[in-house]
């Protein structure tokens, strides 16, 4: 990989060649139409159907959450609609004991790990049944029982946490891998540098999943390198690029990175090139449509199956939103809980004043 001078500096962004994602060093499994463009012997059709269902569930929840936000019924919410190839594809590439370190944009990963739709909406409403007790704005969730860490807003901090957890697992001789989500702009943050360097020095079993989320636009202000994957070179962390709108490519690349980490070979930096849903190619490359087409071509999906899924998701979400909006807000006194394990005197005074 090379470093090149940008040609559109005056515009502040560079548009990459439309077919750059087709380059050989960008892993791709599905064409835009859902046809296999490379052998996929590791794919089990039942797993792909599960992946599709999980992606559809995440999309439906994200879209409803955005609607609730626009109606002013919940606070600010970003979500990751259109990015299910990376969020859900990576989640299904992990093993049960592996950990996820999300940002506040990926609360849907919990849905792909057994979290309920109702729990998802309780969190968005910040009500008394919210798993984080209404302490963070929508997206700032945590799910310890699912081995999902707590998402926060400072950019990049979770990357060092993932490396630390992976490192701890290795010290304890447990076969556990930690995956961290982040956007491409987090590669400019201090914690990214810290995490990558520690990951390289200590060969920690981690996967750094960078969603290059505005592909093929790349901000001029963020980097001068051709790719984000090559940022791993200086740390001794190999970088791999994949089509971020291709769930099977993400599944393959992350599985490979997990296996590599589990073998004791260290951390992999994955750069997923993700066309946003509202971008010029977004509709054509929608990962959900692409995977549906793949399943249809293989005879594992039908319009009837889609109609049934749509209806059941609609119903599940309607019920969850009704339950979440009807649930009470957390009692005032809970504001003082969990600052410390035991309520200290000064907080007791403030609570009871």
């Amino acid at each position, binding site marked *: 990989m090379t470093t090149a001078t940008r040609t559109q500096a005056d515009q502040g962004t560079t548009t990459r060649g439309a077919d750059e994602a087709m380059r050989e060093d960008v892993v791709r499994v599905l064409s835009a139409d859902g046809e296999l463009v490379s052998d996929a012997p590791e794919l089990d059709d039942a797993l792909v159907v599960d992946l599709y269902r999980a992606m559809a569930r995440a999309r439906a929840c994200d879209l409803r959450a955005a609607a609730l936000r626009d109606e002013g019924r919940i606070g600010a919410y970003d979500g990751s609609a259109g990015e299910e190839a990376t969020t859900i594809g990576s989640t299904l590439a992990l093993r049960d004991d592996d950990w996820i370190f999300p940002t506040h944009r990926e609360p849907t990963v919990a849905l792909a790990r057994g979290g309920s739709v109702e729990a998802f909406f309780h969190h968005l409403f910040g009500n008394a049944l919210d*798993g984080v007790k209404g302490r963070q704005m929508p997206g700032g969730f945590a799910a310890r029982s699912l081995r999902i860490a707590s998402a926060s807003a400072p950019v990049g901090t979770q990357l060092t946490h993932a490396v630390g957890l992976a490192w701890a697992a290795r010290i304890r001789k447990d076969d556990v891998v930690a995956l961290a989500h982040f956007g491409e702009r987090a590669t400019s943050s201090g*914690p990214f540098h810290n995490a990558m360097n520690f990951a390289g020095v200590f060969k920690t079993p981690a996967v750094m999943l960078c969603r290059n989320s505005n592909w093929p636009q790349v901000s001029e202000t963020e980097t001068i390198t051709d790719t984000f994957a090559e940022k791993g070179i200086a740390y001794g962390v190999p970088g791999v690029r994949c089509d971020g709108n291709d769930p099977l490519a993400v599944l393959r690349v992350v599985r490979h990175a997990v296996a590599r980490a589990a073998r004791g070979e260290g951390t992999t930096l994955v750069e997923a090139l993700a066309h946003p849903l509202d971008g010029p190619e977004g509709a054509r490359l929608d990962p959900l449509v692409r995977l549906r087409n793949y399943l249809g071509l293989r005879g594992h999906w039908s319009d009837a199956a889609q109609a049934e899924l749509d209806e059941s998701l609609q119903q599940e979400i309607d019920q969850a939103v009704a339950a979440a909006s009807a649930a009470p807000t957390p009692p005032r006194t809970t504001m003082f809980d969990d600052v410390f394990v035991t309520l200290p005197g000064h907080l007791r005074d403030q609570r009871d004043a």
Partner: protein
Amino acid sequence: MPQMNMVQAINDALRLEMERDDRVVVLGEDVGKVGGVFRVTAGLFDAFGGERVIDTPLSEGGIIGTAVGMALYGMRPVPEIQFADFIFPAYDQIVSEIAKYRYRSGGQYGCPIVIRTPVGGGIRGGHYHSQSPESQFIHVAGLKVVCPATPEDAKGLLLASIRDEDPVMFFEPKRIYRAARGEVPEGDFTVEIGKARVVREGEDVTVITYGAMLYEALDAAAKAEAEGVDCEVIDLRTLWPLDVDTIVASVEKTGRVVVVHEAPKSCGLGAEIVALINEKAFLRLEAPPRRVTGFDTPFPYTLEMEYLPLSHRILPALVETARF
């Protein structure tokens, strides 16, 4: 009981807890083979190996950030930051992550990390080896803050800190690392976090202090006695949460109070202590509360002994407060 200095007492606590609990790991810059910049971790690398006494890259943010992940996995990391002056690259991790992890996850997770770091001046270290930034951590909800002044307290408080489920900032007054010597119980014991100690009982003036300034306060109290002023000296030991009961009980007895700390005066811990006394014992006060502290300047090199609130600055405050 064996005599130890503070470095030996802290080393003893780390060794004891690492033997007792295999989840405890020490990490930091040169804490392994070298034994740390002040040799506090000397010998631990040979005893426990490089996976539990870890030499890290020179990156405070990386040390503290990875310690968070270790704690989430159930380990008990005890990272060392070489000087508190260098802790600020990790400040975001401490303030935004460690302090808030339990709260923001609804109690699902904790961050039981003890961050050990030397503080304070008087060692010819200049601005970047001498500061006392404890208030900047006290003001952050979710951190316990400890600062021992004796070898016995250093050992007992460190053991209590490592066993605590909450994160603890463990400030070690470097000026008395080797100068403070005393008897330290062998084997396992803890000093409860949140409990101050009345080091010297007296009737006329309450002196509240901690860390290296305890010895300056005791020296001033001895000199005040010659002038007929009987001082009670309290070593806070834990800076947050404060032992309000011990403070208030003493002030209710004496009606007069002087707070002594190295940290800058404005918005320092002394300000909070005086405010608490005003709230809880105002009607018992016989004199205005006084603060003898460092100044609101950066910590100076050549003039460091002018900056520090040494005995000769404390003594007149004690006498004037007693005679007010």
